[in-house]
């Protein structure tokens, strides 16, 4: 096992309060990517 994640980073990753805001942020970001649309690729300027 090689430590690749610092204590501070680990604290941020596992802190429920920080992660709660991250959860809101992530949910919105994922939603925007999903709802951001999709389309074809065969028309110019797709």
């Amino acid at each position, binding site marked *: *096992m*090689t*430590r*690749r*994640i610092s204590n501070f980073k680990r604290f*941020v*990753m*596992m*802190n*429920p309060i920080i*992660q*709660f805001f*991250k*959860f809101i*942020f*992530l*949910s919105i*970001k*994922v*939603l925007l*990517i*999903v*709802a*951001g649309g*999709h*389309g*074809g*690729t*065969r028309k110019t300027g*797709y």
Partner: protein
Amino acid sequence: MSKIVILGAGISGHVAAAHLRRKLDKTHEVVVVSPNSNYQWIPSNIWVGVGRMKSKEILFPLAPLYKKKGIGFKQAKVTSFFPEGDSETEKPFVMAEYVSEEKRGETEKITYDYLINATGPKLNFEATEGLNPGTNKAYSVCTYTHADHAWQGLSALIEEMKQGKEARIVIGTGHAKATCQGAAFEYILNVEQELRRQKVRDKAKITWISNEYQLGDFGMDGMLLSYGSNIMKSHEMVEMVFEDRGIEWILGSGVNKIEDGIAHYENLDGELKNIEFDFAMLIPSFSGHGFKAFDKSNQDITEKLFKGFMLVDADYTPKPYEEWTVQDWPETYQNPNYKNIFAPGIAFAPPHSISKPRKSPNGTEIFPAPPRTGMPSGITAKLVADNIIDSIKKQKESLDHKGSMGNMGAACIASAGFGMTKGSGISITTFPIVPDYKKYPDTMGRKLGKTFGEIGLAGHWLKLALHYAFIYKAKMRPFWYLIPE
């Protein structure tokens, strides 16, 4: 009055059926043909496989829901396609064989005006000698029954480890051209966390074995992603996580044979090696179901419908990796020969892989087949349903809804361990799924703002929230359609 027949009630078949039923009035018939009596939310199988969820939490019976919603349901498996009908039946039909208890073995011609083939993949365990879930200490988590078995195997091993046994756990791909690395990736991290929770982590050596050339390829040629204020490659991110969790890895390896506790594989250097294990979870190769198709005079026309999976509006011309473009990928999932047949989700034949093809000196192809995860499966099913709805309403073919995997994003919220306070998730979004090297030449074919990675507890919550949201949606509870695919 049109009859739309949907084959399969997985993510794509169920999404298509739900949208068709909601948007078409009851003069039109929507019929689902699927052998499994239950709907299952497959992404949560990894939690079943570590005993943190019961399989009944990820499934529900389809018949009562379909009855309530006015969707016909035949618990049967399709065996052959007659897109022109036959000498006795004017209309196109599929031949299905019932698997339900009351009608087991009975066959039926199911006629249609529109056909959606959403039969997903055949889990092709036979392609790897000795790989048969639950035997030779090797398991799968591809279905809820497999995941239940995997947990039985793992929990028995954990008990032995508590008595002092040192164990080797191998997780990854079980074939040189397997796909779905994401699921195996989630499972290895969940197993690692479960061993820590059970206080036996120090007794286990955990190894990732995969046909990927680099970690984090995921069958998508890897990706460049933003991670906090950094930009990193997916292999760097996965390497960081694996090293931090003490997981070793073997790459560029095609597993070709399983014996009791031994996986034999060939690597990209052409070496034939093996690895011993006490527990393995290996994803099999995915293949088409081997369906046959016949014309009106009963001549075999399978090649007009299938190339393993179903042929759709992709460019299947063989060309070298350097000449692949996003334009090769389908947009409407319509069969070019029979315009009333569509194949969303995993059921369509991809034009080629996404990852760079590689061969060992012995000529064995070792690289991931292209994945088609839940989100694109849902999106492509919805757009197929929308095109059929438009065509019915306008009484002429309408293909305005398009969605190429080269112009579509995907979110992969990979569980890295279960637990409301101790859990973790690796959230990766990618846009587009198939890299567009022309449009995004400097960022490995992806749009950076929309291709990002995050690691932490929030990822676990998000994955859990998606579990409940998608089961709510699948149960077609009030306003289900507001939840995007």
